[in-house]
């Protein structure tokens, strides 16, 4: 533990040395990424009418205040600059109008039919649909049709403030400009019908819209095609009587419009034979075009808007795929864990199971200690109760609190104290190894307590000569606090599910520093402990695999450790672990192309470990981003149900792990909160490790670590009560 302590000291030293500058910078990037993701999601939700949509429709009101000439007048209402006039379409002219589009399926078909019969029409497009399908609007304009505003997301304007009305118009206009490079002066209010349907609620809006420079266009005949009444009925309703001119209302969006398309295909040639002309509105009225080209800044604003919406749609698409991937990864991993850990438990708990003849040879227990004066006595006493013959070697790694003296003062036989200048945990372990008399080596932390049977259980697998190292079962002692309970759940799942799975897959990534055993010959073959990485336990375990040794899990070798009690301690512990794991994976990357056992580990174990520990957690924030979005912007109920479903899977897995370990289930009550508060902390830590790794932090880290080691004995860094066994890093909660 010594060096973990000193390193440990150095880790926060490096991080906290300038806490006001460095830490926020590292947090800033993940935060910005999350914010950008959220913004993209919101933009998408906004143009998909999931946000800010208003589906209220006002019931009819009295029409006392609407001028009679409007009620009796034509469908083209001009209230610009104080006017109150309305126009009709001349006889034998029909202006087809299509509302609510463009629609990716039906609008192209409508356009095709119009083109086939050389007809022009007017499309009243919404801002949301225009933003999503800008090419269609471009095509409309190019083919001689006119486009008009139909608001941004189709609310009943009589409910909206003038601010919102302005915004609906300008945002709609912005989208059209971005799509087709023009501005239009035509407007049709949502939920509108005939001029005589104007009432006291909608007329003021119409007047107001006139002051903004728009001509309001309602209609003469309503095909009611949205009711899908059949082709004949659509034609009957759309056709005006006695050769009169008319504005015809149709829809190219909002559902299945094949009846509309088929009706058009009949309607157009039939009426053209009767002498009707199908023009767009200004052609029919013989007026200048409603379109004005836009240039300069306005055009670029429009284009930028369209670009952003397209980007958000694409990004969201990618996110959804990523979410599906992460979802299947999470669930696949759980299934794999459940199946394999059940298989493992069945195997090692089978009656008469043994690794071979009982291992009774004496064992050297190495206890590296750095400033563990408070805990070391408990640790050593717990070892004295060991049922297995042992010698105890306490390696004091330059403690400043008299750790070595505490042990010596106990005056116990077969306990030796070796002192060294502070050099780190790997060095302390190597020194202990050099001084150890026996061939089986158990390593533990200075703040860990063993049960009497732990050492014996831990070394039994060495009866199998292929086994080079054994991982024990580390348990959290202080599990009554919230953060302790969360780690308890994490440890029990990590040891009983992950480790059993890794055991069977032969790619156990870590022997926990708190409780692990090694064959001396195996250690010597791989060159002992190394200080290349921050996680020497992961490093050595991978080296063992590459050397062809089996690394197994001994469930009954229990060691009790104290878990970090504050978020800060937990943070620096996990940062060390996750960054150390990355370093170790990187260090052993060549296993990927090796031959023999090393290659097997490199091609099976290493990718698995990387996937579960380093890659998958990186995608985990997506779950929360979508959760947050879903809860706020809906569908709230479905989102929460989905989340509860995932939670239920977790509970099942955790309960199974608890049962395997014969733990009381009461701690599972804190699992829901763990999913809301703890998991996020873990992936922020991982993200931070990624950033350190990607920004070349590896070199800088090494340098800082050295200074940290020098500083730590000076007492700059408060002693951390805990450096529990590592390894149970569960990537995705």
């Amino acid at each position, binding site marked *: 533990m010594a060096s973990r302590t000193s390193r440990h000291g150095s880790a926060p030293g490096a991080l906290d040395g300038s806490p006001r500058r460095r830490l926020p910078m590292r947090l800033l990037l993940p935060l910005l990424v999350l914010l950008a993701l959220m913004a993209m999601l919101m933009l998408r939700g906004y143009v998909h009418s999931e946000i800010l949509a208003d589906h209220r429709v006002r019931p009819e009101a009295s029409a006392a205040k609407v001028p009679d000439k409007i009620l009796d007048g034509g469908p083209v209402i001009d209230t610009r600059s104080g006017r109150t006039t309305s126009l009709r379409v001349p006889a034998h002219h029909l202006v087809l109008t299509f509302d609510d589009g463009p629609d990716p399926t039906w609008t192209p078909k409508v356009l095709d039919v119009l083109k086939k019969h050389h007809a022009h029409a007017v499309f009243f497009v919404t801002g949301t649909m225009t933003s999503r399908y800008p090419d269609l609007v471009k095509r409309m304009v190019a083919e001689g049709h006119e486009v008009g505003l139909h608001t941004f997301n189709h609310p009943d304007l009589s409910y909206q403030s003038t601010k919102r009305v302005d915004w609906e118009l300008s945002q709609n206009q912005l989208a059209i400009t971005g799509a087709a490079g023009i501005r239009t002066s035509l407007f049709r209010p949502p939920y509108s019908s005939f001029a005589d349907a104007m009432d006291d609620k909608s007329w003021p809006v119409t007047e107001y819209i006139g002051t903004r420079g728009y001509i309001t266009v309602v209609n003469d005949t309503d095909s009611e095609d949205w009711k899908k009444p059949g082709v004949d009925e659509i034609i009957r309703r759309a056709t005006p009587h006695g050769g009169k001119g008319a504005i015809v209302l149709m829809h190219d969006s909002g559902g299945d419009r094949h009846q509309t398309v088929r009706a058009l295909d009949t309607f157009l040639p039939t009426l053209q034979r009767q002498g009707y002309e199908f023009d767009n509105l200004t052609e029919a009225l013989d007026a200048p075009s409603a379109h004005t080209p836009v240039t300069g800044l306005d055009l670029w604003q429009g284009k930028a808007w369209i670009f952003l919406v397209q980007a958000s749609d694409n990004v969201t698409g990618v996110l959804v795929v990523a979410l599906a991937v992460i979802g299947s990864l999470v669930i696949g991993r759980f299934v794999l864990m459940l199946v394999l850990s059940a298989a493992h438990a069945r195997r090692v708990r089978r009656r008469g199971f043994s690794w071979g003849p009982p291992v009774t040879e004496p064992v050297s227990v190495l206890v590296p200690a750095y400033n563990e004066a408070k805990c070391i006595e408990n640790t050593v006493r717990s070892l004295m109760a060991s049922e297995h013959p042992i010698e105890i070697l306490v390696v004091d790694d330059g403690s400043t609190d008299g750790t070595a003296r505490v042990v010596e003062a106990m005056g116990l036989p077969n306990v030796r104290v070796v002192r060294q200048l502070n050099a780190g945990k790997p060095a302390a372990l190597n020194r202990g190894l050099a001084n150890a008399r026996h061939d089986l080596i158990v390593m533990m932390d200075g703040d860990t307590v063993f049960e009497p049977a732990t050492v014996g259980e831990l070394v039994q697998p060495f009866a199998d000569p292929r086994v080079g190292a054994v991982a024990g079962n580390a348990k959290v002692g202080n599990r*009554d*606090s*919230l953060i*302790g*309970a969360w780690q308890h759940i994490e440890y029990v799942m990590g040891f009983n599910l992950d480790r059993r799975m890794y055991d069977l897959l032969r790619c156990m990534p870590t022997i926990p520093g708190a409780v692990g055993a090694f064959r001396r010959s195996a250690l010597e073959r791989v060159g002992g402990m190394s200080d290349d990485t921050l996680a020497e336990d992961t490093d050595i375990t991978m080296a063992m695999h590459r050397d062809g040794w089996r690394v197994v899990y001994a469930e009954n070798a229990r060691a009790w450790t104290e878990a970090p009690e504050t978020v800060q301690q937990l943070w620096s512990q996990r940062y060390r672990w996750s960054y150390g794991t990355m370093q170790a994976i990187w260090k052993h990357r060549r296993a990927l192309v090796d031959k023999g056992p090393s290659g097997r580990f490199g091609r099976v174990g290493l990718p698995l470990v990387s996937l579960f520990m380093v890659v998958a957690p990186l995608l985990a924030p997506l779950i929360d981003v979508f959760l947050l979005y879903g809860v706020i912007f809906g569908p*709230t109920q479905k989102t929460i149900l989905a989340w509860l479903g995932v939670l239920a899977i977790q509970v099942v897995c955790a309960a199974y792990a608890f049962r395997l370990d014969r733990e009381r289930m*009461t701690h599972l*009550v*804190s699992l829901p*909160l763990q999913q809301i508060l703890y998991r996020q902390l873990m992936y922020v830590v991982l993200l931070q490790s990624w950033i350190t790794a990607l920004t070349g932090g590896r070199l800088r880290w090494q340098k800082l670590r050295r200074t940290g080691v020098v500083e730590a004995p000076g007492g700059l860094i408060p002693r951390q009560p805990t450096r529990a066994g590592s390894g149970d890093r569960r990537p995705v909660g």
Partner: protein
Amino acid sequence: MTAHGYPTSAAISRGAAGSAGVGGWQPEVAAAPVTAGGGSGRDRYLDLLRSTALVRVVVYHLFGWAWLTVLFPSMGVMFALAGSLMARSLSRPALSVIRGRIRRLLPPLWAFSAVALALMFAGGWNPVKDPDNGGIWGVLKLIDYVIPVGAPPFPWHIGSKSGLLEDTWAVQAAGPLWYLRAYLWFVIASPLLLWAFRRAPWPTLLAPLGLTAIVGTGLVTIPGETGNAVTDFAVYGGCWVLGFAHHDGLLSRIPRYVAVSGSALLMAFGLWWASGHLGPDGWDLNDIPLAQASWSFGFVVILLQYSPSWRELPGRLRRWDKLVTLSNNRAVTIYLWHNMLIMATVPIIDQVYNLPFMQSDRAVGALDSTYMIWMFLLVWPLIGLTILALGWIEDIAAKRSPRLWPNGVRRGGSRRKA
């Protein structure tokens, strides 16, 4: 405010040791003797909670933001603090404790009632002819202004809409009085509740939640004022008994992970219930009894579970020390008067429209759109004035010598505000 005035201050502001405060509002002096210079035995964490609760109540009544009831369930917190103090006092004979509590509660209420009734009568209210609760009964109920065994009657509309005050000012002013009724009943019921709690802690703790599920959900409806009283008693009874649990140390004996996780689940239930039973103001928990009860209960468990027992406010909080002390010493006054003072800001701000430079449309528009902010800024000086004018009644009621501005600063110091 600087921090340097603090260490000696606390001892003075709470002079008369041993007098029981009106729980929930007025913290009482701890059993431990006041040590010189080291602050009193007051738990400043609880004081801070009480001040926060008060500020939240004022802000909520001013802006009406429903989400504030979720952010900080003030009433639950106040009742829990009161319950804790009550449990402590009840080591003495119950009757004298109850008498002491009532004695401290009533005089400030009488001052408020006198002003409120005078205004209502002046506004033309005749309780005998009130359309909602007229007749002899209406007159009899006026006694609630003296001893709040029930919520007092008030006219729903008084004056005219174009008058200085809105015509609903009486509703607003008398609205907070329900708290006094609930408090009074809790005090009277406390000896029994405490007896039950010490015999069967868990059933007593959870019974109010169960009762809320019955009377607060429409399952059983008790009509009229009695119904309101029973519902309030049920909704906040859990918090009151939690105060007992905090005082008796039961809360600290439960492992923290159990308490926090359990509370979180209960609170999640509360939110879920609220989502399906939204009231006229949406997520305003005051309109959703079961949600209020469970959310407040869980919230209070977490607050009291982490109760760190500060002897003085730590770090940056220390700058609020004087305000915390003042608001704790004048909690009854602030609570009683705040709503009427909020109403009083309106006619004052309306005067601004008459100013010469306020005649343009833009100026009027600017004032219109920032009106609430001005109310918010104005209500605090008004509360300060009320404390100066009427706060001393709290001291008299507590048999203490009256103080003008008890913010904990040594008397005669230059910091006194007037």
